[in-house]
């Protein structure tokens, strides 16, 4: 049974690294070898004829420009389905910000710096961030998140560095987000990320959950401490909207009281649950 | 302060009289003329409205067939354009080949 320990975090790190390498290596491939099979980063990624578009960016573009473009909807399809079935797995397993934050975590651990979640805000802030951002975008007439989104900025900075040998100023935002981590783990991801909020909203009826088996639990609280989002899996928050299914708590539990489970009863996932403006 | 270069077509037989007439205007300088009845005239005025009025006035002189603007320099405006303060409106029709000489 001990072999099972830490399995998810290793897997996750592998996936995150791979996902990060895509956006790290790709500009080099494009720039130096003109190999342009893959383009873009996690705002929109094109792999050959297959396109992915981040749901929030797509939604913003549609709302702000008040036009609909079919390929855009098709590009959003796979990420939306992923969120519908698996919840915020993009955040937990792919997002380069989370990846960098994890690296930061490891570095801090190495330096033996301990920290607590200093600032805690009401969870509701998360939803206001999403609504506020969408409203603001519509008022300004420009999709706000798309040029200030930390996950997108990581990709853009890499591209700028490779293609134009310079960095864009707005990269400071990434640094800011990572700095906030020092005070509260994943402060941005927890409270401010509108993309996370949208994915969480989409994943409200998701199939994949972290479920606690009461009979095995010793209430040791290890899982609660492990959760980067400050949730309490011990209280069953692994099944809440906010959980991004990273599996950290599953790994942390020594008694296998926590586990990923497919939602047993046929979930009422509405097939027509298109992203809506709340 | 606009400066305008004009080609003035005049009836050749009236040319001499016109040249005398034009030399009386302080804002007008005649740079050249030929036997076909072309005068090359440069006008310099305080404002473009004044320039227009002057052209109107001169066009009515005896013997003048027409007054064609060939070159206009509006100094203040150009300075602003150079400084990037205003963007000049583009007049494409000026560049159609059939209108170019």
């Amino acid at each position, binding site marked *: 049974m001990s072999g099972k320990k830490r399995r998810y975090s290793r897997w996750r790190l592998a996936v995150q690294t791979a996902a990060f390498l895509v956006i790290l290596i790709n500009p080099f491939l494009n720039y130096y070898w*003109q190999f342009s099979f893959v383009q873009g980063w996690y705002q929109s990624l094109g792999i050959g004829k297959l396109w992915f578009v981040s749901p929030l960016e797509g939604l913003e573009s549609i709302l702000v420009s008040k036009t609909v473009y079919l390929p855009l909807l098709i590009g959003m399809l796979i990420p939306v389905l992923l969120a519908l079935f698996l919840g915020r797995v993009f955040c937990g397993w792919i997002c380069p910000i989370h990846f960098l934050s994890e690296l930061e975590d490891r570095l801090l651990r190495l330096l033996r710096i301990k920290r607590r979640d200093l600032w805690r805000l009401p969870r509701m802030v998360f939803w206001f961030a999403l609504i506020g951002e969408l409203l603001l975008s519509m008022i300004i007439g420009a999709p706000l998140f798309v040029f200030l989104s930390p996950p997108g900025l990581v990709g853009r900075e890499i591209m700028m560095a490779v293609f134009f040998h310079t960095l864009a100023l707005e990269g400071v935002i990434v640094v800011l987000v990572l700095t906030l981590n020092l005070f509260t783990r994943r402060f941005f991801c927890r409270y401010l990320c509108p993309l996370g909020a949208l994915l969480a909203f989409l994943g409200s009826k998701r199939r994949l959950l972290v479920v606690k088996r009461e009979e095995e639990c010793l209430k040791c609280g290890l899982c609660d401490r492990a959760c980067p989002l400050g949730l309490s899996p011990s209280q069953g928050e692994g099944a809440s909207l906010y959980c991004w299914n990273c599996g950290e708590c599953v790994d942390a539990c020594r008694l296998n009281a926590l586990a990923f489970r497919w939602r047993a009863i046929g979930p009422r996932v509405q097939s027509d649950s298109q992203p809506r403006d709340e | 302060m606009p*400066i*305008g*270069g*004009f*080609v003035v077509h005049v009836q050749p037989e009236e040319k001499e009289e016109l040249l005398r007439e034009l030399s009386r205007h302080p804002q007008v*300088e005649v*740079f*050249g003329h*030929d036997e*076909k009845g*072309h005068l*090359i*005239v*440069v006008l*310099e005025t305080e404002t473009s409205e004044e320039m227009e009025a002057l052209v109107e006035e001169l066009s009515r002189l005896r013997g003048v067939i027409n007054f*064609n603007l*060939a*070159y*206009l*320099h509006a*100094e203040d405006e150009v300075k602003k354009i150079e400084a990037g303060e205003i963007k000049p409106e583009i007049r494409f029709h000026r560049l159609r080949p059939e209108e170019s*000489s």
Partner: protein
Amino acid sequence: MALSRREFLKRTAALTAASLVGMNLPLKVDRAQADADRWVRGTCRFCGVGCRVELGIKDGRPVAIRGVPQSRTNMGYLCMKGMLFYQLMRHPDRLTKPLYRESKKEKFREISWEEALSIAAKKFAESIKNHGPDSVAYYGSGQALTEETYLFQKIMRAGLRTNNVEGNPRLCMASAVGGYITSFGADEPIGSYADIEQAFCFFIIGSNMAEAHPVLFRRVMRRKLDNPREVTVINADPRRSPTSRIADIHLQFKPGTDLALLNAMAYVIVEEKLYNEDFLNNYCTFRVGKEKKEVSFEDYKKFISAYTPEKAADICGGNITPDLIRKVARIFATSPATMSLWTMGINQRIRGVWANNLIHNLHLLTGQLCRPGADSFSLTGQPNACGGVREGGGLCHILPGHRPVKVDKLRHEVEDLWGVPRGRIPAKPGYHTIAMFSAVNEGKIKAIWINCTSPAQSLPNCDKYRKGMAREDVFIIVTDIFPTKTTELANLILPTAFHFEKTGVFGCTERRSQLTLKAIDPPGEAKPEVWIAREWALKLAEELNDPVIKKCVEPFLGLEPGYELPKAIWTEYTQKLTAGRDNDLRGATYEVLQQLPDGVQWPAPTKEWALKGGTYKKFVRGLDPLADEHAIDEKPYQFYGPAHKDHKLWVWLRPYKGPAEEPDAEYPFYLSTGRVIDHWHTSSMTGRIKELMRANPYAYIEINPKDAQRLGIKPGDMVLVETRRGKNILPAKVYEGPMEGMVFVYWYDMAEDRMINRVTKDAFDPGSKEPEFKICACRIKRLSGPKPLKPYLVRL
């Protein structure tokens, strides 16, 4: 001097207005003028037009070039090459030190001039001692000054006893030389540029003069546009070029079928009795074959009857119809004055001499010659191909003053004039260009001096010849101002002075010799070629222990190389070698040339005549002093050309001959090459002018839209061009230029992948030995979508 800003604006306004009605105002608004301390006059060194330019110097640095409106050649107009070449004089890539390497695998190291000249002399001497005089060679250029070519060939012929003196004009002008000599008995055009303003029909064939001779083309265009109804422009070219845009009639025929077209035009002229009977009776004979047998007009009629317009239209393809040929022939024959203009499209052909003859034939039949505006006018490619190489003895078969080497009397004349023993110059002509580099391939030539040209890029099928040049047992000396494809294969690189850094004469297309004065010092240790040649000859004399070599340069010893030395060489050449020849330049001394910024057109036997500008039209009594001198009868025209003892012009019976390599199933396209206005030849110079390189960073392949569509080639796609000799990969430009079934590539690009002469064919005209650059068969294939390409220049 300085204008107030207000005054400047008013003048600009007035000038702009005046330009609209074509009025000239005596005003100047030239800001560049105020920026230079002084202006030095000279000739532009890009192309054979011979534009007069002035170089602006400020604080000892070249800062601008401008045209001079009073000029007789260019009327003040320049092209961008000419306008910007001052940038090259202080270019960081300039070669400034002699560079040497024993083996071609090694890196170059800097050496002193003393050492460099010793090595150069030693290698040539060794080669002569071990393998005989014909194991050394000089390969010069139509861009070298006349003084340089003259001195080098004198040292080679009289000093080293070899006729291996060639030059790149073999690649561009040789067929025109052959054509003029066989048809008119004398090299070089009869008329001048001034005929353009008096012509009524321009027959431009095989020339994109809008790109290659832009400033001259402007004169043609002005003539046409000022008299749109009276003047007709006919352009015959397989490719639609900027030249054909002003043409009333564009004859588009399959590459290499021009001989049929020209013969068919002659057929129409004969059939419809459009010929000038008086002119034919008085001045012409008909000739055929190698033995130049004289035949009758009837024989000619019989011969020409095979070339009906119907048959020719069949051969020519394109848009040629029998009616079109008839129409063009009628215009040609009946216009008040017809001027033919042609360049490489005619010359660079397997039968270039014949093609030249056939153009001359049309003029002879119709008598469109010697009158104002009527001329058969070949355009030169290089600034000094006429003056230096054709007149100065820069080809293997001719001595200075249009003297064939073979003729004992003339050869001995030269030997006597030089004061060397008779028999010093061998009777046998040396290797012509292709033979010379074949000999390099075979190892027959052990040491070669390449001056001011880059055969590694400019020879057809150049890979073949580059192999030979890369041989370790061939010692190559290159004199140039920049690294080129050829310096890559050199053992010894000698840095030379550039234009305006030395004094000398260029002779342009219209027999005009113009002097360019030294304005600034060359950078670093670069030296004028005349100095290099003289010093080298002295070392050779020591090495070979041969006082005759020293004798060759004796008149020039100790002279200052910036002005005195070229002057002494020019004086010897003109006063001694051109005396009594058809290119008599005795009147065109340095003093006269300095007095006349537009130079002198030969024949100019006396100073008085030269001061009038020389001869505008050859062979016409009253206009040409030699026509009076050599007159044999009372007729107004006297064709005293040295090659025709009968004082007649010869109409040649030349059959149709297609190109050496025609497209077939395997290689279905015609490949043709040419120049773009912004680059000069191998772009070793123009490539270093950032403005020009930015405009044309790399060569591309022009494809007809129909072919492109068929092959799925889109603009910018990378295209593989393949011939039997090699392949190139070039970006595509799809446009209505080349006709269907033909592709066109510019040859200036130095990048290995885009160097089109790696695939062109090295078949050559048996008469003129000029290779057929213009036509070969190729196939093309789309390789990939657009790729960003980098401009490439050879650097050290």
